[in-house]
């Protein structure tokens, strides 16, 4: 897999290049800013996935998001992984709204876990979506949706979490070591419980789940989920 990366910290760039190279990936391009990456991209061998820091010069705000959108507009087949020092739900949502499929948003700390990093890169390369587990865990733990989430079984909760992180049905089945049919059945019941229309597109499903988790409407028109409640207050 060919990787291009942009980060304003030379130390971090070098470290990441070394790690990726040792893991057998090819780093075809590393740039200091998103703009530099965009200008140099046509000359380099086409990368499969681009890794971007969200905060880069010149304004150190959300250049990474802008660069991600620009890259996807130019070559939609290239996957984009945006790294952030702080895992902010708002950014994840903005990224998911801006582009569909083959995108990821991860906390920067994750990258030193080779397995996680490679897993995320592979999933992005396959066109899946990756959302940092921290964000999903925080959203699920928050009590805004307690009344509905409390009625999910433990298995359903696990599956919702995996779904929100962007895994496909097959990915969830593999991760939780379940049969794909079982997973599909659970997903259908979870989506019904949350009142989300089932969508064949995985990425749109992620966005829908994320939006549901973020929304603050207290009224949820959903029937109680099947099965006895597993977690009490």
């Amino acid at each position, binding site marked *: 897999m060919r990787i291009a990366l942009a980060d304003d910290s030379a130390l971090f760039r070098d470290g990441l290049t070394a790690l990726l190279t040792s*893991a057998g990936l090819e780093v075809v391009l590393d740039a200091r800013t998103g703009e530099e990456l965009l200008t140099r991209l046509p000359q380099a061998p086409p990368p499969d996935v681009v890794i971007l820091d969200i905060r880069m010069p010149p304004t150190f705000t959300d250049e990474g998001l802008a660069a991600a959108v620009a890259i996807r507009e130019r070559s939609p087949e290239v996957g984009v992984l945006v790294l952030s020092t702080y895992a902010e739900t708002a950014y994840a949502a903005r990224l998911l709204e801006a582009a569909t499929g083959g995108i990821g948003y991860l906390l920067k*700390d994750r990258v030193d876990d080779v397995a996680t990093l490679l897993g995320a890169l592979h999933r992005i390369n396959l066109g899946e979506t990756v959302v940092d587990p921290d964000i999903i865990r925080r959203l699920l733990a*928050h*009590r805004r949706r307690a009344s509905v989430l409390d009625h999910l079984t433990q298995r359903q909760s696990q599956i919702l979490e995996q779904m929100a992180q962007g895994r496909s049905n097959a990915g969830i089945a593999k991760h939780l070591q379940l049969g794909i049919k079982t997973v599909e059945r659970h997903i259908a019941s979870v989506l019904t419980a949350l009142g989300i229309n089932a969508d064949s597109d995985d990425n749109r499903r992620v966005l829908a789940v994320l939006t549901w988790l973020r929304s603050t409407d207290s009224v949820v028109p959903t029937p109680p989920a099947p099965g006895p409640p597993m977690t009490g207050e």
Partner: protein
Amino acid sequence: MTTRPGHWREAGACPDPAWLDECSQVQPLTRRILPTIEGRDFRALGRVRPCRAVTEADVAERQHLDRAAVDKVERTDWFSCGAACNIARSGSDGSRCRWGQGDYRPSHRVKFFGRLPEVGVVCQTWLWGFALLPSPPVPRDTADVRSRRMATGWGGVGFVMLATATLVLATEPQLALAPAHAVAGILVGVGFATTAALLFNQDHQRGNARLFGLLTVVWLCGRLASHPVGALTWAAFLVSNQTEVVVAAALLRYPADRLQRSSKVFIVSSAIAAGVLQASTVLTSTPAELGLPDTTWPHLLQDRGWGPVTTEVRSVWLSAAAVVFLALLLRRWLRMAPLERRTLTPIVSTATFAGLATTPVFLNAVLSPQRQQTIYLIRSYAAVAVAAAFVVSAVQLALSRAALVTLVNRLQVPSSPGNIQSALREALLDRDLEVLFALPDGSGWVDDRGCSRGLPPPAANRMPILTQNAEGKPLALVVVDNRLDRYRTLLDAAVNLSRFALENARLEAGLRAQLLAVRQARARLLSASLEQRRQLERDLHDGAQQRLLAIGLRLAAVGASVEDDPATSAAIGLLRKELHVALDELRDLARGLYPAVLTQAGLGPALEAVIERLPVPIQLDIPPQRWHPDVESAAYLVACEGLTNAVHHAGDCTVRIDARQDSSGLRIRIADDGRGSDSLDQRGTLRSLSDRVTALGGDLTVTSSPNEGTVVEAVLPCE
């Protein structure tokens, strides 16, 4: 006169001499108003009056000034009585008018009322004489006394002139024969003479007073033409039609002290044309044709039959001149300052009427003698109206001084800077009048709201008047319409009456400025501290955090290469765990210093990140709008503090956070339905927050009572 490109310049204690120079170049009046500041000889200049701390003498002086203002009003009462007398007399004239019957012989009724007009004239003369008597002088300095004495002297001259005119014209032979015409003649003469006398006493009006003196003389010449006094009759007739020209000049000039260019051209050409036409009339017509007494007359071209032709030419010319005159008058009226317009409106309206009345006189020369008599009479009384209008205008000017009484009353109440400005605007009818207060420490000028201002740019149409205190330091600068310079006494009185109020208001303006400065300093401090926090967060993010992340990556690479050595691998695993803890702590620290997402994505996302980490249900309703960073930080901190308060004190509850933009700024409200409390202790935790909000000019309120929940609300102004 040109207006230079305006610019505001910061000034020290005294206006910059260069600025004064520039002012005087642009506006010649300024030289008189703003003399050398260093010279300190302000008293003699009569414009820049020193102001001391209030003493008993000052109070006495102020009372004196008030009395003078009231006295002016009383004098206008004398004028009014005189005017009433005039009207009564006109009424008695009406009773004697028997024109149109072709019989001008006095009846017994006329004999009985015959002396009434004379009595009226004498009464009116005396009443106006009372009004003209100098008021008890309020001498402030020698220059003042001298000017007063001079004014009184000229006033006396005017009085004598008036008496003479009355005496001469009261013996008019036509009085019994054609009373209406004769009385009109007397009234016009008296009106002009009165105006001349009135104007001697006013600012910048000596030239106009001379003009009215000339007018009276020319008018008397015209009347003289109806007396059989030998060669004088035709000489007087030669001059008599200059009356219209001089009246036109007066109308186009008064109360200014010079004519506009176009008006001057019109007047000069009219005077020449009138002279030539009148001369040709004398040469081509006989006295009988002109309705004059049969007396010595130059008989030259009378037998050639040119008389009607010259009369025709004269009438056409007069009509054309009347139209041009009305146009010039209208243009002038439209360009007047409000105060001027108020004074001149009666004159302009009656002059327009008179002008219109004059036009058909000569065009309809072919009418029957009776109609001609009617038209002549209308014309005569139109002239009376013009003369009366001048008198009314002079009285009105005196009445406008009564505005000072209102000003005094308005200044009695505790006066704020804005109050004084609006009081002066009202008294002087100048909507753009501006008062700039000198700061007590001489560091510059502030306007009525306490905002720092530079000196106004020298402009052709604005005139600055400087008031100073006893130490010779500038007190305030009153910037007025320069057309008000014609009412200099009024202007001086207004500024002087305001002096004490200005002194107080200046202190208040100074305090306001200080308060503003303190508030701005607090806001700057707050802004600086926030900027420091942001910088610190950036430094942490770009330095330590990136470095630790890079170490993590290196460790991971090393860990991957020593997978076959379990002991080393385990040690590296432990190190990585420690590193993650360090990174988490560092992240929390940086987030606490300043949440980067607040700068990057705004208030909504930043608060979303906060509430995701809290264990209570929270509803968030924040528009995706962006505000000034300082406002956003303050709102964020208010919300965080409100949330902390809810989590710690409110117990089991739900919280709602709303933010909205309204006219007063960003309004953020954090409301919970928890236990609530009325203890001050709980509010004490919000005090530092209150300081932060007020530093931005905002307002923080906390309402809480047991079992009713707590509401924290902040309003943050956004400029």
